[in-house]
């Protein structure tokens, strides 16, 4: 029953929606019931999603657990689902964040509990749906449906300017989606012209890449721009980012967490899933602009974050910076860059969620998020300080924690493709350390005021919802290989789609193995080795099948 298959995938995806329907029937004064009930639903959904981690065939780049049912045959729309490694990771991230988002709401949501938890569950299904769909129509449906619960979460349970923020979020991202829809329909009709059939499936869209490449430059560039703006608003990339700080600041903690961890990933996911495979040539042509915007985002987001007085706004602008880095990696179009970008999505989901949760903790206790109102909290809240420190370090990319894996790999990938951009991006990590540590110092260190002295340290529930994030941060930091393995085949396929023949270059592994074998002996001047001419040290090394270590395999 609990083996990874299409049915289980659909169950895990739609379970939250089902839970929401059940909760609808419960009288609205049963606060505890909604809290525990929705948490249980999320946890069960998480547990149901776990078999997919183990059942995923890492060697294959195909869409796994695929299933399709005819839906609107006249339009070529199918209810078509399935996942590859890239979607799997984001899907798992969603089921992972779900229970945390619910658990952190227990203390902060004071009114209209029934609606709140129902909307959270609906949102969860919409988000999970985006990652499993293999049909563009269905994708667009989930993509849009997702906005509705988010709109209500911010608009009802948000801060003082909640309506402004909610409407801004809704309209701004809707504008992007509509552009994306136009591009989708354009490809849809082009496909009809080319093949004579109507088909909304993702595979058929990706198969259109060569046909699109033969269209006029203007057509291609317009398509790229339509996709780009649609996704860039969602990411958000500079200059489409201004909805984000407002939405984050006004949203309840759980809203911020989901917004940062999952919703923003829709944009980056869109780039990886649609823009790059469908329009590789045209994307490459416009690449300098995209790189420029990513770099501006990295530096600009970091600089603006530096002088924020509101902790939540600071974290929100840091998101702009981090996602700029993520986009830079993806636009590097090589395995390092794309894998790093995917890692950055996961890492940002973990560390930024952690930071938003941490801000939520002090907000619940003091009802303020202004940095100036705090100071010296380490003294009375040591557990909180430790967790906040770990999340801060993860966010600024300290090795052993997850952030480094993403940032380091992205920068290496970007450096392979465009070194100057990577140099500028690397400057951004200096600023990253500056603004995060400056905030940490002002909030956590220094003398403590009497008001803050009364603040209680984390309780068990709070520790429990931080714990998975901390564990994940260390796991990814120490042993990211399993995750890298999951994304390996799909990324390989993607890179080949973008740059055919990338992996066909001459392999250096054997040569490196020989060099590794030689090791320190390569330091000796050639004259010491009689009969071995310079530059031919390979002759010194004994021939062995496996290198001792390092080297490559």
């Amino acid at each position, binding site marked *: 029953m609990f083996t990874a298959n299409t049915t289980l995938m659909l169950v895990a995806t739609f379970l939250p929606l089902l839970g929401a329907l059940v909760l609808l029937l419960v009288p609205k004064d049963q606060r505890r019931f909604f809290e525990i009930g929705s948490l249980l639903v999320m946890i069960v959904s998480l547990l149901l999603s776990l078999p997919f981690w183990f059942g995923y065939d890492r060697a294959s780049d195909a869409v796994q657990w695929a299933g399709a049912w005819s839906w609107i045959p006249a339009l070529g729309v199918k209810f078509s689902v399935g996942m590859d490694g890239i979607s799997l990771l984001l899907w798992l991230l969603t089921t992972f964040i779900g229970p945390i988002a619910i658990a952190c709401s227990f203390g902060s949501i004071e009114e209209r509990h029934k609606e709140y938890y129902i909307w959270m569950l609906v949102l969860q299904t919409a988000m999970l749906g985006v990652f499993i769909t293999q049909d563009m129509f269905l994708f667009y449906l989930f993509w849009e449906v997702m906005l509705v619960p988010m709109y209500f979460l911010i608009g009802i349970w948000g801060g003082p300017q909640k309506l402004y923020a909610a409407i801004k979020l809704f309209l701004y991202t809707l504008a992007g989606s509509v552009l994306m829809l136009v591009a989708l329909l354009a490809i849809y009709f082009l496909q009809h012209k080319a093949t004579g059939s109507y088909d909304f499936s993702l595979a058929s869209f990706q198969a259109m890449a060569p046909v699109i490449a033969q269209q006029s430059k203007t057509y291609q560039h317009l398509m790229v721009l339509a996709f780009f703006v649609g996704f860039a608003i969602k990411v958000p990339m500079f200059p489409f980012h201004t909805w984000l700080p407002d939405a984050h600041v006004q949203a309840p903690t759980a809203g911020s967490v989901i917004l940062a961890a999952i919703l923003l990933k829709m944009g980056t996911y869109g780039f990886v899933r649609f823009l790059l495979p469908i329009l590789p040539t045209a994307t490459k042509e416009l690449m300098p602009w995209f790189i420029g915007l990513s770099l501006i985002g990295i530096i600009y987001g970091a*600089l603006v974050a530096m002088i924020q007085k509101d902790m939540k706004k600071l974290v929100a602008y840091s998101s702009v910076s981090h996602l700029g880095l993520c986009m830079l990696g993806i636009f590097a179009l090589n395995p390092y860059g794309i894998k790093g970008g995917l890692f950055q999505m996961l890492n940002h989901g973990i560390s930024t969620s952690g930071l938003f949760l941490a801000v939520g903790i002090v907000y619940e206790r003091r009802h303020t998020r202004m940095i100036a109102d705090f100071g*010296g909290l380490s003294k009375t809240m040591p557990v909180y300080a430790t967790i906040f420190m770990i999340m801060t370090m993860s966010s600024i990319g300290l090795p052993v924690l997850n952030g480094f894996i993403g940032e380091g790999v992205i920068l290496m990938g970007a450096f392979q493709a465009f070194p100057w951009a990577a140099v500028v991006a690397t400057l951004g990590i200096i600023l990253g*350390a500056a603004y995060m540590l400056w905030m940490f110092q002002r909030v956590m260190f220094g003398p403590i005021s009497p008001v803050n002295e009364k603040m209680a340290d984390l309780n068990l529930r709070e520790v429990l919802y931080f714990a998975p994030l901390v564990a994940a941060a260390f796991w990814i930091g120490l042993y990211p290989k399993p995750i890298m393995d999951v994304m390996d085949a799909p990324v390989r396929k993607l890179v080949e789609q973008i740059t055919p023949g990338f992996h066909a*270059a001459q*392999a250096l592994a054997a040569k490196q193995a020989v060099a*590794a074998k030689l090791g320190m002996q*390569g*330091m000796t*001047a050639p004259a010491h080795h009689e009969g071995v001419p310079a530059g031919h*040290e390979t002759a010194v090394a004994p021939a062995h099948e496996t290198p001792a270590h390092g080297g490559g395999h």
Partner: protein
Amino acid sequence: MTTTMTADMTLVHAATTAASQPGSLLWLIPFLPLFGFLINGLSGRKLKSNAIVDTLALGSVGVAFLLTLYYFIQLMGLPAEGRSIHQSLWTWFDIGGAQVMGGLTTYKIEWAYKFDVLSACMALLVTGAGFLIHLFSTGYMAEERNDGRYYRFMAYMNLFVFSMLNLVLGANIMMMFLGWEGVGLCSYLLIGFYFDKESAAIAGKKAFVTNRIGDFGFMIGFFLIFQVFGSLDYDTLMGSVREVANMKAITLYGHTASPTWWFNLIGCCLFVGAMGKSAQIPLYVWLPDAMAGPTPVSALIHAATMVTSGLYMITRLNFIYVNAPMALAVVLAFGSLTAFVAATMGLAQYDIKKVLAYSTVSQLGFMFMGMGAGAFGAGMFHVFTHAFFKASLFLGSGAVIAACHHEQDMRNMGGLKKLMPITAMSMILATFAIAGIFPFSGFFSKDEILWKVFNGWYQHGHYNGPTLNLVAWILGMLGAFCTAFYMTRLIAMTFYGEYRGAGHDPHGLTVPSEAHGHGDDHGQDDHGHALAHDAQGHDAHAAHDHGPTEVSWRMWLPVATLAGLAVVGGFLNYPESLHRILPIVPADLFNKWIEPLLYQVAPVAHGEHIPPAIEYGLMAWATLVWAPGAMLLAWWIYKVDPTWSRAKAFVTRFPNLFRWVNAKYYVDEFYEWALINPIKRFSAQLWSFDTWVVDGMVNGAARVTLTWASLMNWVDEYLVDGAVDLTEYIVQETSGVFRSLQSGRVQHYAFVMFIGFLVFAFWKFLV
């Protein structure tokens, strides 16, 4: 955590020396302190007894030291060409393919350790000095033992040792970078240990951010290495570097240049990283501020181990630098400049720890000078001797500070030699060592460096332009003079004369103490007066009234041990020239030990050979005239005249010179003015830009839409709807006309028909 050792290592052909041997317990060396950190850090608050914390912290580092020693002995048994033991734990990164020079690399970054001639020495230093400093801490942090912060301190110290061991034992550059960042984190945590003191927290942040600037260069450097070599593994790099260096040209990113050009670029980038971590001009500013941390931290991190990471990195990657003459010249230039400038800053400091801090910066400059002159062995050797004497001096100063009730200003000390003889004796010996007096260790290491620099000039060496070497040598000699001067000044002010702390101050030398105001490095006013050493059994107030006494064995033993090493350590690298005079001491032990790791170039025909007379002459000059001269000068100013009138006269005579030196040439202020404030201002401007322009466009679009909508509303209300109303009105009005037309009379109809016919005909006629 199994070793992924492959069996083929045992099959290595008997005729060939294996480049590396497996070592299955190697991982324990770094991980033991990690376990200490984890246990203490996670459960330290609940542990009732500090003895358990001590046992775990000291035990883990101590056992790691013994294990290091075990492997060191094993290493000595191996042939010189194959002195390397390695262990690979797991694959850390497996990122896939990358297109680098020559093709596609699928390099996987292993979590692996490599114990070879260089890392063995560094690991011995880290665990050995680390253990002694941990022991010192148990005495020094006596106050913290009772207020629940002690476990945290010890845990951080263990974490530091873990990170530092990763730095030196890592088998690839990524592992080094892991340790590199890890020690940065620990430094941040430990500098800011008294975080309730604002200045300590700020100093911690400053250290981290400044180091990040260095990391920027380091990262670019190793990205370039990866582009050229397709690997970050030391063995692979070492095995392939000669082939790369002998290439005609290297083309990367469409730019073709000689390997030397690329190696120069890599070397300069990496040196930026070294500048940050090893506190060289212009990134040294964090180190003096880092003295806000507890004194054992200053000894361990900011004198003996972490700040030498840059030196370690350059020696580890010496194969890059040997092939990069420009990069070496840059190292030499910055090193000598730092050696001199920082030494002058040390001349005018009154805070005992600040003197030592600038001294450390200056000594690190000397080490870089050695590297820049191509003498990696000499530079590395100075790392070790410096670790001995500077750690001893720092710990000694910690003992003094503790004994003087957290007083750090030397003007408020004096006469401590009689009161704490062991500490005083140790520090005096260490001072002889740092000043470079024969036969103390500093003589062998520092003199060797200066000699190599001079030699490079004299021989028209192939590393650098000769002029630079000469300038560097002169700066180095001046720096050495300042070093001997300020160290003797420190000793004279602290240990000689009379104790000025207890209100006894005949010459008016003391200044209002900061220790009683906002606290010293212990930063806690509620405990500020308590005596740090534990074994005396005094209660705090009694101790305060008594004045300084010798500290407990937990504190003086490490100081004395390190001072002892500082005295004899130099003989490990006894110069060849002296070996000829006194053959009983083996020559160049350390140089020979480390030589297999150094990239050898085929000997190039040098200019004239340097006559031995010059070598002996310079040696004698340095140790018999130059350094003793500086020491005597300081002695004459600060000891012979107890009123320090000569120093005061000098300050009166040259007030601006003193002000500039005392204010450290206003470098911090300059950075604040030229870098930090503009960035903050720019950030503020960007934020306004974000709010008013970027978001303004969004809100503007919304406003335009709303305005348009209300316009449309108006149009709808008055024009569209009005048009409807108008039509209705017109219909109503015209219907009246038509009603009147519909009269029922035939004449009317006939008339209308006729008119209609005329109009029709006329129209037809026209068309």
